């Protein structure tokens, strides 16, 4: 059900894709297509194979084996948050879109996730407010930046572009 709930909030939209229609691009998709120059991308747990319809070559990771029904080539990885499979390229961009495991995650868990995953350009679309911190008082990026050796760019409130730090002494 994660496939339906998280990346496709309305099941009706999902079913349209199953019937062969192109999935309507949202602003994050559009940003990806406009800003990622590499054709090969890794999409993590958002049924990202629809991006193939827009010219990308995807390596898809999913946390639930039900995804195999829809995209047999995808890899099933149940512990995605804390495990970066070794077969995932360390140079191609990685995209996370609405990762369910960041909902209600603590800041410590978010940092561990970033340290585990960011080896190349990593795009994370998530509801920052859903991470457990005091968003009435702080900005999440201000809490995370000092604690990681990563270059984090906030594209907007819900979209981060993260790169490994190139300035490590």
């Amino acid at each position, binding site marked *: *059900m*994660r496939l339906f*709930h*998280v990346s496709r909030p*309305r*099941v009706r939209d999902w079913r349209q894709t199953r019937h062969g229609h192109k999935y309507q691009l949202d602003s994050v998709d559009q940003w990806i297509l406009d800003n990622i120059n590499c054709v090969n991308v890794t999409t993590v747990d958002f049924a990202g194979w629809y991006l193939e319809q827009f010219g990308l070559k995807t390596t898809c990771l999913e946390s639930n084996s039900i995804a195999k029904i829809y995209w047999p080539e995808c890899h099933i990885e149940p512990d995605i948050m804390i495990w970066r499979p070794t077969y995932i390229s360390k140079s191609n961009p990685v995209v996370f879109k609405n990762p*369910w*495991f960041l*909902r*209600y995650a603590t800041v410590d868990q978010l940092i561990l996730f970033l340290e585990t995953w960011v080896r190349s350009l990593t795009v994370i679309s998530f509801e920052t*407010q*859903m991470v*457990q*911190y*005091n*968003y*009435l*008082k*702080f900005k999440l990026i201000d809490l995370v930046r000092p604690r990681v050796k990563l270059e984090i760019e906030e594209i907007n409130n819900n979209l981060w572009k993260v790169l490994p730090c190139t300035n490590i002494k």
Partner: protein
Amino acid sequence: MLKKYKVDSNRWRDQQLSGFKSASKDAILEQEKVMLNFVTQFPNIKWQWLGNQTNFLKICKQYITIDNNDYQGIILFNNSTGGLSTSRLVKRIQEAICNVDFAYVGINRYLLTEHDIDIELPDALDESLDVIMNYCDPAFKRLHTFKEVDANHMVAAHPRDCYGLCR
């Protein structure tokens, strides 16, 4: 004849219930129990319902008296999708409780988007909510703290921080 309850997957409560295979439409969610446990402590009080219009309202009528015209307590919670500033939240709560001695308030913390009243908040969000509720009325006592949910089943859930008022 009772109208058959229709499950609507776009509604928050139905989404939660559908996450539990064995749950029936009459099931009471954990956070709803918090509310019922509080309000049933006052059996002689009539309550105004300012919560969502869900099947839970029908369930509550089995336990408490709900009268939106003649009441001594209010039940306030919602899951609307719009953002809420702290000033609007305070105003809403203070208006709702101004003429009553009893209240249950459930806050969906993820609806709060902005702090715009002149009180300093502590670093922790839990404590900040306590400060805000204390600002509404010092008699508010916390009943329940949102901590975490099983994201696998409750990905659409927004459990509440719950407060009770008994003046």
